């Protein structure tokens, strides 16, 4: 790859203008990425606070920490809604996708900068409405809004919540649209499809799901609202509706949404592993196409959430087969990442620790997914803590680990500053260990039969619940640490340099932080991504050691 040399007196970087107006009216994809970073971080800690209270409540079989079962039900609903719609879905694509994708393909900005800013404002409106609900009463349907409970029986702010989810969906659609159009139209000369970093391939697949799936979510929550307000009979059988229809509509979006959360994690890991193993990624094309395959399969497996819902046995069988198929592209990725370590020259900086942790946890999450695709097993563990553990392995062990890995990897690029490496490594270890202590016991709890969303539970489940809560306290420390040292690093002088990891990729050929227009002249791409050489890395290392010792 080649980008024009950095001039000795570069123009101002994208952070230079400090006025509030310049931030709120910005069209710069990097600034919008930073705006999203600040907002999703706030929501992450709001959702995390809810999780903390839930885990404290569940330390004992009887309800004691929270005032009532209603408080507990509102809390787990808020935890789910905030974490999924306001944190996980926008986390990597809207923060790092926004910041990096145009730079990675040699573009000055996204294709539609104003739509990009609009996406953030829409997100903010939806998010503030979410906070409003949290303060003024809450909602107790679970993030899944199952009918007819949500449409006819719940006495909480369901319509407001539906409106909030409806609004935030448009933010997702606009971001997805921008990613698709940018990838198609703004690639620099020489940046062919097979020279794209895998980060871009994975985000492209994510964007397809965002644009095609999100409207169905909007339709389902609108119908819930219509039934609740005007008694239009869509889902409630008392009005002539069908409650299962809601589940079909909801999961038609919400299963692909799982891949909106995890495909960007694949994107991040595919960048970090070759960089710290100092070698080209293994099986580039297979990884690229497996992202597209996952995006396509994701639309064909929604019925595996409904094996015991009352859909027919044959429908269950078909969805089971299709769900097993997803194992294949997921397996391709895990095996190719692992093979990338072979004959590498591996360094263990913080982003690499997060990425390696991701592979391990995603493997466990994926394999337990096969158990859930196995019809008869799902009958037993459906709606128990087994499923709670499974999707946290994918969403926290997978997506959140990758998000943190990405923040550590690109923090020097975004801010121009390094963070303290020791504390970074410690946070990666705390998150990995704390995560497993929290969620491994939950697999067992579910297998033993403890249903999810239980305020009170049978005393024999207590030991495992106490373990889980203990793990959650370690996990919480792992999440708070980066918040502290990232913020403190902002008080340091800019010490990162343009390419602290010695990485390939266009984003590392420009200043840290980048200038407003990213590049100083036309970009010409002349080679494949990940042109690392492990042997050269070794020679450099030996030389460094020599200098160090003498």
């Amino acid at each position, binding site marked *: 790859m080649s980008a024009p040399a950095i001039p000795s007196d570069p123009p101002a970087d994208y952070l230079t203008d400090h006025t509030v107006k310049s931030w709120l009216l910005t069209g710069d994809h990097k600034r919008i990425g930073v705006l999203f970073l600040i907002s999703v971080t706030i929501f992450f800690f709001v959702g995390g606070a809810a999780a903390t209270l839930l885990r404290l409540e569940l330390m004992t079989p009887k309800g004691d920490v929270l005032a009532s079962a209603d408080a507990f039900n509102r809390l787990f609903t808020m935890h789910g809604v905030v974490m999924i719609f306001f944190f996980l879905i926008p986390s990597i694509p809207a923060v790092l996708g926004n910041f990096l994708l145009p730079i990675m393909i040699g573009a000055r900005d996204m294709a539609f900068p104003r739509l990009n800013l609009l996406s953030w404002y829409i997100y903010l409106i939806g998010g503030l409405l979410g906070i409003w609900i949290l303060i003024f009463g809450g909602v107790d349907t679970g993030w899944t809004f199952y009918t007819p409970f949500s449409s006819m029986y719940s006495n909480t702010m369901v319509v407001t919540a539906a409106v909030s989810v409806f609004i935030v969906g448009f933010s997702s659609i606009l971001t997805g649209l921008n990613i698709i159009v940018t990838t198609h139209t703004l690639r620099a000369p020489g940046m062919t499809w097979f020279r794209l970093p895998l980060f871009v391939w994975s985000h492209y697949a994510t964007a397809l799901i965002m644009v095609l799936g999100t409207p169905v979510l909007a339709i389902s929550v609108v119908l819930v609202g219509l039934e609740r307000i005007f008694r239009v009979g869509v889902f409630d059988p008392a009005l002539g509706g069908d409650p299962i229809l809601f589940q079909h509509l909801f999961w038609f979006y919400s299963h692909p949404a799982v891949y909106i959360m995890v495909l960007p994690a694949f994107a991040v890991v595919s960048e970090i592993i070759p960089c710290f193993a100092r070698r080209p990624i293994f099986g580039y094309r297979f990884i690229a196409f497996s992202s597209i395959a996952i995006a396509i399969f994701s639309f064909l497996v929604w019925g595996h959430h409904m094996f*015991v819902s009352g859909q027919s046995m044959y429908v269950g069988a078909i969805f089971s087969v299709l769900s097993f198929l997803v194992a294949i592209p997921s397996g391709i990725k895990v095996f190719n990442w692992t093979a990338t370590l072979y004959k590498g020259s591996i360094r263990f900086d913080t982003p690499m620790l997060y990425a390696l942790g991701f592979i391990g946890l995603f493997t466990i999450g994926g394999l337990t997914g096969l158990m859930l695709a196995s019809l008869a097993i799902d009958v*037993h563990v459906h709606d128990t803590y087994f499923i709670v553990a499974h999707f946290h392995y994918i969403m926290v062990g997978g997506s959140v680990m990758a998000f943190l890995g990405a923040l550590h990897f690109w923090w020097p690029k975004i801010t121009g500053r390094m963070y303290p490496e020791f504390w970074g490594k410690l946070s990666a270890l705390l998150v990995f260990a704390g995560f497993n202590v929290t969620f491994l016991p939950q697999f067992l709890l579910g297998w033993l*039969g403890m249903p999810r969303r239980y305020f009170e539970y049978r005393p024999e489940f207590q030991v495992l619940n106490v373990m889980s809560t203990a793990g959650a306290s370690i996990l919480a420390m792992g999440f708070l640490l980066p918040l502290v040292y990232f913020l403190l690093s902002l008080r340091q002088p800019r010490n990162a340099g343009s390419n602290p990891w010695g990485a390939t990729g266009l984003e590392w050929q420009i200043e840290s932080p980048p200038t407003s227009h990213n590049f100083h002249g036309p970009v010409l791409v002349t080679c494949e991504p990940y042109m690392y050489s*492990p042997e050269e890395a070794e020679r450099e290392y030996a030389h460094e050691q020599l200098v160090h010792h003498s």
Partner: protein
Amino acid sequence: MWDFPLFPEQATANAQKLDALMLFEVGILVFFTTLIFTLILVFCLRFRRGSKVDRSNAPTHSQALEVIWIAIPAILSAVMFIWSMQLFYELYDPPADAAEISVVGKQWMWYLQHPQGRSETNELHVPLGQAVKLNMTSQDVIHSFFIPAFRIKQDVLPGRYTSLWFQPTKVGKFDLFCAEYCGTNHSIMIGTVHVMEPADYEAWLAAKGVGPSQAEEGERLFVQHHCAGCHRGSQTVHAPRLEGVYGKPVPIQDGENIRFIQADDRYIRDSILEPRSEVVAGYEPLMPSYKDQISEQDLLKIIAYIKSLANQEPIQ
């Protein structure tokens, strides 16, 4: 403090079969997790920066390897699917001699009615070794009937009948949970399944004195709601007789055509609540709807009564 169990109790043959499949899949989980963790660990140690090993010609792709790690998961997935599908099919295939018990879920309790007439809430008494089929519906939101020791679960829906069957192989008390979130007191919508020796079960059934059976109760309701006035033969109203109808195909007028529908619980329920939706060929749509007038429990009794007429000679 470390005395938590690793397996839930096994109280049906299904539970044993399922646990075998689960162990197989746990084996696969452990194998692949160990494989990936070991490979990562070995590569990370061997190829850490500074180690003196051969790094020349690091491969960037391999068709053969890709085929292997596509084929092996595909084959294992096929085994898992076929095995689990077989067990899943058995869950839909109750023995013909299964005793039928009616279940109505409502916020936040379970109501259960035995065919012999005795009913109970949040408790289910069943005899050891007898196959039991539950016919379930909900009066309000979606619930889910879950007995971990039997490894079975089925959502219970408003406006529809779903069913579940089991054959207990162990005497004892087993937990019954509502597994689908249903509002405020979801977590105390729980109960106990008592599996008893058949003699104890007979004694339990008779403990409250021998009352009318579920079908007899249904017949009383059949008269009380004036169903009998037309459906038992009437000079003024031309209505189909219900003897010998249950379980047989019924001709339905569908515009110009006639199609046949199996007269099952669903059909009888809809005929009572939505009588004009599926009218028997040759009859006028005269019957009024009983929507909101008969409770779910009573509907199940009336169905039990009509079911009890199944073996009588049809009357034209």
